[in-house]
């Protein structure tokens, strides 16, 4: 790919053809405030915060402007300062004021931008603060939707359309009444939402947050145990407990994405009812046994059968290797083709 050179705030920056000015700046370590840009999504240019001045063109947004050879870009000017500061102030006075009780506190892009711009309390005092309070949608078992914290960046809408392909949500209504909504503005659980949580993972603020999630102390790279696809993920753990799962962006299998089970279905890992040893039925009751005992018992009983007397059913939760082994065992050892898999049912 062709590389280009441009100047941002007097610094010469190299970029690849097709990149936006915003991407080039971010890659070069130059921060430009932005809310609606997300590296996984097509740019739409709606938050209007990523303003820059380009020599010969004047003020424009950087996320939709492709880099060009020799471009001279400024990220600060009085015009930028005014338009951006007012926009950020407006976002703040139209946003729920209690960051301390917000799950996103500390990781919120609006907080980050507010700190960058440097919010002055006296200026905020002049503005009319919203008195509106919209109901929180808590219908989904895995995440909450709080429209009072939404900045309408549209990242969730685009994620659902471009990445998930479900298109469960979109903008609805007009003007100040605009919200992100399901079809007919029903609770999200009644929509075609698959609860995959991809939008939740990308929401820059506290408008989409997981319901039960504690901050992990550390993360462990692993592979999802649910199915044979093998999505790469990070288990966020506290002590010996898994408290969060996130997709591993570097995994070629899922490129950071997960489905509802992989992302939210981790409760079984530490569940008190989870089986941790084999059980053998003795006198009509299951009793705990060792692996050796259990395997010996199975082997001894299987020896009494041959050919079509036997059938094996395997599971999508097993790895490819495990599935391969079972079909080999069924055909070569038991002498039958009676092998099937739950994914076909």
């Amino acid at each position, binding site marked *: 790919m062709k590389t280009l050179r441009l100047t941002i705030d007097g610094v010469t920056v190299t970029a690849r053809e097709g990149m936006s000015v915003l991407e080039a700046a971010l890659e070069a370590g130059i921060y430009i405030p932005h809310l609606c840009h997300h590296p996984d999504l097509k740019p739409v240019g709606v938050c209007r915060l990523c303003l820059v001045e380009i020599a010969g063109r004047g003020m424009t947004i950087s996320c939709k402007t492709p880099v060009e050879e020799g471009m001279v870009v400024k990220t600060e000017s009085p015009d930028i300062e005014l338009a951006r*500061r007012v926009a950020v102030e*407006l976002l703040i006075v139209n946003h729920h004021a209690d960051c301390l009780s917000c799950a996103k506190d500390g990781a919120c892009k609006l907080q980050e931008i507010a700190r960058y711009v440097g919010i002055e309390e006296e200026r905020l005092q002049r503005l009319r603060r919203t008195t509106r309070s919209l109901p929180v949608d808590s219908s989904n078992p895995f995440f909450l939707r709080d429209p009072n914290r939404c900045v309408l960046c549209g990242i969730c809408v685009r994620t659902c359309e471009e990445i998930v392909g479900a298109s469960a949500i979109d903008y609805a209504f*007009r*003007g*100040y009444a605009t919200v992100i909504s399901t079809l007919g503005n029903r609770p999200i659980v009644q929509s075609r939402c698959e609860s995959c949580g991809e939008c939740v993972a990308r929401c820059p603020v506290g408008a989409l947050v997981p319901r039960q999630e504690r901050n992990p102390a550390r993360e462990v790279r692993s592979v999802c145990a649910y199915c044979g696809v093998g999505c790469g993920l990070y288990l966020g753990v506290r002590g010996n407990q898994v408290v969060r799962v996130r997709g591993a962006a570097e995994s070629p299998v899922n490129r950071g994405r997960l489905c509802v089970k992989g992302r939210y279905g981790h409760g079984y890992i530490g569940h008190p009812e989870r089986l941790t040893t084999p059980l053998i039925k003795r006198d009509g009751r299951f009793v705990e046994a060792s692996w050796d005992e259990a395997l010996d018992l199975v082997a001894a009983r299987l020896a009494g059968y041959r050919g079509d007397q036997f059938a094996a059913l395997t599971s999508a939760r097993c790895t490819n290797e495990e599935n391969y082994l079972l079909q080999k065992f069924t055909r070569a050892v038991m002498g039958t083709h009676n092998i099937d898999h739950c994914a076909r049912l």
Partner: protein
Amino acid sequence: MTFEGLQRRARDEWQALSESAVPLIQVGTATCGRSAGASAVVDALREALQREATPALIMEVGCIGLCFAEPLVTIRKPGRPAVCYGHVNPERATQLVSEYLLRDNPLADWALGTVGEGRIEGIPELFETPVLRPQVRRILRNCGFIDPTNILHYVARGGYTGLVRALGMARGQIIDEIRRAGLRGRGGAGFPTWRKWQFCLEAPGEPKYVVCNADEGDPGAFMNRSLLESDPHSVLEGLLIDGYTVGAREGYIYCRAEYPLALERLHNALAQMREQGLVGENILGSGFSFDIHIKEGAGAFVCGEETALLASIEGRRGMPRPRPPFPATSGLWGKPTVINNVETLASVSLILQKGAEWFAEYGSEKSKGTKTFALVGKVKRAGLIEVPLGITLRDIVYGIGGGILGDKRFKAVQTGGPSGGCLPEALLDSPVDYESLTTAGSIMGSGGMVVMDEDTCMVDVARYFLDFTQKESCGECVPCRLGTKQMMDILTDITEGKGREGDVELLQEVALAVKKGSLCGLGQTAPNPVLTTIRYFRDEYEAHEQGRCPSKVCKALIRYRIVADKCKGCQICLRACPVGAISGERRQVHTIDVGKCIRCGVCLEVCPARFGAVECVTGQ
């Protein structure tokens, strides 16, 4: 049938009509006429003709634009000029039949003017009357004079000769013709039409599309509706020429669903074009194939913005997207697309029919041709007008409009609808062209022109327009969605006497941020009413800050009171007050309970003028 054959048929029909042995009665039944009661007039005419057993032809026509005098009826008796009557109601209609048709008394008092050769005693020539003399009727030439449902009428008056001419020209030649005419987009921004077409023609990508923007969502604007209802083919011809020139095979007309009659006329016109081989495969045997689809909008102002309009045609939510890429390179379904306003396309037809030089006869250096405006508000003669660009605001307001209703003082004129600015008396002599209006802080827009008198509160006006843009913002970008709401909230506070120190500066700051930061034209122009009213009427803002509404409009800042030594105790106001706020015995001075009063102004209206005991006051 060949085009010549069609023309022959059209001319024959037109001639038969003009030489008709029976009187021809034309009734303006565009939406404006209908809402003024034209349908009842038609019924009354039919009935009267039947009763009197007198033969006459009734023809429903579009709108001449004399809205102040609707319903309009034009009667042409054989051998006489046509007489145009205004304010016709069913009784007058009946009388016109019995007096003029039967007894040859032209009822000159009700006549607005005559049209055509010959004079009638006591009736001026319509086009020489003050409302029409300053006008140049080109785009509106057929409006109110032809049957808009009959393609032959359009053809008889030179229609589709522009298309025929274009089909014999190279594309570059057509673009050059439009360039020499100096035509600029009539939808608001005034972008040179030829350049847009050139970009699209040169853009890689197939197929290409052309789109006619008939969304017309500005409050107070009705130029496009009237033209589509009164002369739909003039627009359709332009769309065909547009399609041929840029190499499109398909065109769309995006028309708001609230224009049912315009849509009906378009569907009817399209069907007739299809019959005559003017749309579809191999148009007039030229090898050019082109089809037109009509798409109804659902009443969102923002869908008039070109990229939102395209999204809407594609079946998505009508939200603008940043440009570039411009539609000329990436428009409908990502293909090169030209979007033009209704009036732009009607001008294209004219340019191809009459030539670039003819078109450019009128206008100013950078704004050529004529332009229609919807002149409304506090003028004596509101209506749809067509004037040469470069005419002054004064000529429009005082010449055509006849001055201010009730001879009150002029205060401001708002051009460009909710996106425009309010211009004061001092600017009445500025020319109406794209550049001058922009310099003054307003815009040409699509042609809305609202006149305001001394009783108008400019802060309230700004609030009114902001209320509109705020509700119509698509909600997608931050400055527009939140900035218009913020300005609206501040303005509401000011009009309610709850303004705070520094509010005017704050308004200006937010306005600038919205203007510079917004994604589309809606947000970029929404602050104009705020900025211009602050610029030209700052004293009114200051008065409000001090608790006074100089025009006595803002309810929170006014009080009604009864002047003791004028009140005769007649009890008229007491009985009229809707909330029982007035008390007083017969022949005793009455008083208003300020706490109960809802400031409706009824007492002021009903207190007999000879007493004049109620007054409205503002401030301390």
